[in-house]
């Protein structure tokens, strides 16, 4: 318990989290502080490229184990099944319509790459290693949740099966392609490749992350300010409860797979986090009747801050407890 608290305290007082809080507070106070869309997207691409590449270079260095394959399969199953749990809970406690509940559920099966980054930064700072291939697991967990959600919604929308175009769009979503592509390039070019671009993707990483989290704080705060009325208390409760449930599933799976402590913590984080790029866009196309204010605000305004400030410390502490 003490360990968790001191970990959490150190995390909350890190520059990255403080910049998130700054952005959140600035938005709530209606400051006009804002980061241009192009710069925000540029930073997002940078983060994807950097973590993909570093993950791949890590695999090149440490070699590939059979665990990778099992971890990928576990990722697919987790991503596809977590929305079921989320959906059931939502229908039981939240009063959201079938379509809205399905759309929200999709986000929780999928993952948030910046939460992943927050956890791995914490691990790096603490000197705890984790499997480089977890990046690939993160990428593969983006999509399956969407399929589950569409099946869940089909009762309400009456549409059967999944649009082929949508499937292609989701699989070839820019962030997935860049993450997987950079991972592959990191793997191919290995430590030598990493050495060439280290000054770009490693040294300034934490600083870029601060600016990016400032932006996330600004958007999350803006969402909370303008869409609070769409989030009834049970919905907000779901937004902090669901990550803990997801993390528990991640913990079980990670232990079963025999991942390192760092790897378990990362898998917990993936299961606990909710998508904010690929899934919202897919939901707008596939489930136009679902209210974006609900799923965007819940994912970015409730679950992301919870994970960033409290969640990741908790997951790491628990992973250490079980894995240590």
């Amino acid at each position, binding site marked *: 318990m003490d360990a968790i608290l001191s970990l959490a305290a150190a995390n909350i007082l890190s520059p990255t989290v403080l910049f998130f809080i700054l952005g959140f507070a600035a938005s709530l106070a209606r400051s006009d502080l804002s980061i241009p869309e192009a710069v925000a997207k540029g930073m997002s691409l940078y983060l994807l490229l950097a973590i993909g590449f570093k993950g791949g270079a890590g695999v090149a260095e440490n070699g590939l184990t059979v665990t990778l394959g099992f971890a990928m399969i576990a990722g697919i199953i987790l991503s596809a099944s977590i929305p079921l749990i989320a959906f059931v809970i939502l229908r039981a406690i939240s009063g959201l319509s079938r379509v809205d509940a399905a759309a929200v559920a999709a986000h929780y099966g999928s993952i948030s790459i910046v939460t992943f980054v927050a956890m791995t930064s914490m691990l790096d700072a603490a000197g705890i290693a984790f499997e480089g291939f977890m990046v690939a697991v993160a990428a593969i967990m983006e999509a399956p949740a969407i399929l589950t959600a569409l099946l869940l919604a089909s009762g309400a929308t009456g549409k059967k099966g999944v649009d082929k175009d949508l499937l292609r769009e989701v699989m070839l979503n820019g962030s997935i392609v860049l993450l997987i592509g950079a991972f592959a390039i990191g793997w191919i070019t290995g430590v030598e490749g990493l050495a060439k671009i280290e000054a770009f993707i490693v040294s300034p990483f934490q600083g870029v992350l601060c600016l990016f989290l400032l932006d996330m704080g*600004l958007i999350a705060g803006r969402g909370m300010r303008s869409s609070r009325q769409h989030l009834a208390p049970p919905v907000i409760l779901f937004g902090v409860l669901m990550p803990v449930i997801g993390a528990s599933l991640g913990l079980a799976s990670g232990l079963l797979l025999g991942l390192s402590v760092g790897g378990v913590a990362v898998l917990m984080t993936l299961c606990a986090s909710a998508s904010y790029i690929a899934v919202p*866009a897919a939901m707008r196309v596939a489930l136009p009747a679902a209210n974006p204010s609900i799923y965007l605000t819940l994912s970015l305004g409730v679950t992301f801050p919870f994970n960033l400030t409290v969640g990741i410390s908790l997951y790491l502490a628990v992973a250490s407890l079980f894995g240590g």
Partner: protein
Amino acid sequence: MQTHPAKRIEIIIEAPLLRRLTDALDKADVPGYTVLPVLAGSGKSGPWSREGQVSSAGGMASVTLVTTVERADQVLETAFAVVQPHIGIVSVTDCEVIRPARFA
């Protein structure tokens, strides 16, 4: 200057749907269209802004299309088929153009 009547169609649509709309327009063989970026907006589902966004989900795009009076209806139907289940806005204005052959 000699001008000729034509129709100007403007469609505001959810950004993630943009490609579907332009694909449909391409297939319908429209004479051309132009996409303008959109910065912010507000409607029944509340306000939004592109500032700082990394996902295209929370945003709209605007498509402008000038066409002959004769073809306008077909274009409208093509566009509306994509927009219909969604929240898109479609408006049509009478206008005058100089080189009507461009818009047929």
